């Protein structure tokens, strides 16, 4: 009888050593310091598909469209900067932007209204061409994305954006996504190419 009574205690003791669920990870590496947060893929139709890792909540990623690469802010040669869903144009260097509704990259239509984003970054986030409703924007259609309140997700609007660079070249962009293949937000993806003014 004594033996029988000790068995349950041992069983409880063994059972108490449960499974630890702490995540093991999917084998991903943190980006190395200095590693570019911008990647390009040839789309095949003459455009590039670019993904910007703008997942950091505070730091910005600066893209020089002329050189098609990430640059330091100090260089001043960037056209667009990305932070989470925020995108601003480099108004201080003479970059101007515009958008029209559409799904195809082509020549700049007459109705496109180019303007420079404010130099002040906070103001640019609030009033810039890529951002929420601009009082000067006749369509009042808001940011480059639509926000779904039910699913808390962002989806690019069907628009073509035009950017005149600090070198005077003209580029057209169409936003494709805000999520990477795993569904992580902050990965802004767009296809783009240089167009004839």
């Amino acid at each position, binding site marked *: *009888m*004594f033996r*029988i*009574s*000790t*068995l*349950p*205690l041992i*069983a*409880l*003791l063994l*059972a*108490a*050593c*449960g*499974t*630890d*669920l*702490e*995540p093991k*990870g*999917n084998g*991903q590496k943190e980006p190395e310091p200095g590693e570019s947060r911008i990647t390009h893929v040839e789309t095949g139709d003459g455009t590039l598909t670019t993904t910007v890792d703008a*997942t950091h909540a505070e730091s910005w990623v600066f893209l020089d469209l002329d050189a098609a690469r990430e640059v330091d802010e100090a260089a001043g040669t960037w056209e667009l900067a990305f932070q*989470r*869903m*925020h995108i601003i144009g480099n108004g201080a260097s003479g970059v101007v932007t515009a958008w029209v509704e559409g799904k195809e990259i082509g020549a700049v239509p007459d109705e496109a209204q180019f303007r420079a984003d404010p130099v002040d970054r906070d103001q640019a986030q609030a009033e810039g061409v890529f951002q929420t409703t601009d009082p000067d924007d006749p369509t009042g259609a808001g*940011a480059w*994305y639509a*926000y779904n*309140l*039910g*699913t*808390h*997700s*962002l989806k690019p609007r069907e628009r073509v954006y035009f950017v005149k660079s600090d070198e005077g070249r003209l580029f057209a962009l169409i936003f494709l996504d*805000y*999520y*990477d*293949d*795993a*569904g*992580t*937000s902050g990965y802004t993806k767009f296809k783009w190419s240089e167009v004839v003014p």
Partner: protein
Amino acid sequence: MHHAPLHLPRVLSGILLIALATPAAAVAEATATPAEVPAPPPSDELESADAAATGSSAPPSRRRGQPPPEAPSGSIEVLDEIVVTGSRVEVRRDDAPVDTLLITRREIEASGARDVSDLLATQPGVEIVRDGISGAGLRLQGLEDEHVLVLIDGQRIPGRVRGKIDLSRYTTDNVSSIEIVRGAASSLYGSDAMGGVINIITRRRAQKPVEGSVQLRADTLSGYELRANVGVSNETSLLRLGGGTLQTESFRLGEAAEETSGSARNDLDLDLRAEHQLSSSLRLVGTASFIAVERSSVDLGAGTAIFDRTDRTEILDFSLAPELRLGEGHSLRFTAHYSFLDNQLLQDQRRSDALDQYQRTSEDLWETSVIHDVQLGSHRLTSGAEILYERLDSPRLDDGEGERFRPALFVQDDWVLAEEQLLAVTPGLRLDHDSDFGNQLSPKLSARYAPIDSLLLRANYGWGFRAASFQELLIAFDNPSVGYRVEGNPELEPESSRGGSLGLTFQPSSAIRLDMSVFRNDLENLITVDTLDLGGPGRPMRMSYVNVDRALTQGAEGSIRYKPWRILTLDAGYTYTHARNVTEETWLSGRPWHRATFGVTWRPDEGAFTANLRGEWVGTRPFISLEDGTYHEAAPYTYASLRVSQDLGNNLSLFAGGENLLNEGDPRDLTISPRTIFAGIHAKY
């Protein structure tokens, strides 16, 4: 650094506690004769109550103090039934100050219900609320999970998730009976007992010196379950050990491709009970149990993120309860109880680590109580003192931890004014002093009266309260994958209720029993989730807890049990519920206005074949969206289960059946398992 989910010192201290009560040596040495030993508590194994005697159609007498007449085997067994929940001491069901719904072991076995939630789902006045992700909770009198106190053998259990104790954790295998008291019971139990109390009584008394059983069950959801228990006893001691393991697959409803509607489960439970009669006046009871429940599901986040979610809860529980009989009708019972809960929640993003989340929460619950019970003339005086200490460690809490200390005193006087008419009034009062919100007084007054033998009338009025939970006070939980944030509100006041009921039990013959009641609860400071900010791009939706001014639940319940023949039992019940948020002038979400239950049991005493069909019809339910306040009504549904069993002789039986026979369920309002067919074998010794 990894650490074992349950710390060794906790396990060892618990084992030390239980070892004090383990009767191993005592069992071996036991020599006492039955005459020297007081009768064990008669509340258990009620199958014995209806195992004897022949039929009589006259309604049995309710007179107090007389030995209970033997219930005929074909009758509705009510007289011998002993309940404890409505008074904290054992009394006959008719002598209980409040109406106590009792589900006996015999009924549990006849139902074939696998777990406590299955069993309660078809009880009148008890509404099981199923959720494919976090399990099954319940409502009483239109009040939610957090307003219902769930006890095991009279002790609180930890692990409320969003107010809910998952009742599907607890299998019926080790349950002797379940008692349900509807309406405020804070005058005896303090916090949480606003809508009522569910008390799960575990099995204790053995039928034979050595007994045991093994059961294997499999179903069409790729689930299987293996359970076993063994009991050893003699005149003075008892040792019972039970355990089981369950595995089921997840399921999907609607057209979801990846997202699951219900979790896969992987459960393990072990329990141990030891009793020993140290002398003619002192009995020692100790229990220990371990439960591990792992639920796995696939969730969708914002965008296209997919998460494999695993939620693992382990609960270790010990109690020690010496009971001292000081004389006829005079006893003193001490209880020391400790529970430790460890919960791990992992949300593992597929193809990425970016949104992975891992949180570990632990909860300690200490309870000690002493209850003194004495009969003084026509007064049965029950009084007691309790101390509760609770601690929660969680990364979800603002400071990472919460602590609560709550001593309490209570007294109840069951005063029989007229023995013949069973006229009695029962005033009760409890004072709680909570470290968070101070003193809380909970009075209650109950009365019962039997003008004729076949009719018992009851009335009661009482106050109830619920202290805000740690989560409601202190949580700071971000869920960036879905895009919301929940914030605690340290300014919350305790919820309070004042309510009562009027009821009758009519039993014109031993073949029929009718119960009817009306109830009303007025609630103040009801805590609900409020949306502070709908959120936007880059800004999560923010929700917090607030006290709303007032709410009201009221309604009527009725049930009838009819035994036209001794082998056939027919049950039917109906509940009407009117549950309003009076401040907002809206319906309280999820409560059906109408609900009906039914049951048909075919069970010959010596029969080789038994059958049970039972179910519930749940009417239209109103829902109000937390996100945008929109209103919709969920369609009625019928949940029905069938179980048949065939005795093969040699203590072997086969059983089979189906759950959710009408294949009800939808991904938004009713995430329940689809129709499931099961079969199994049961062997006992």
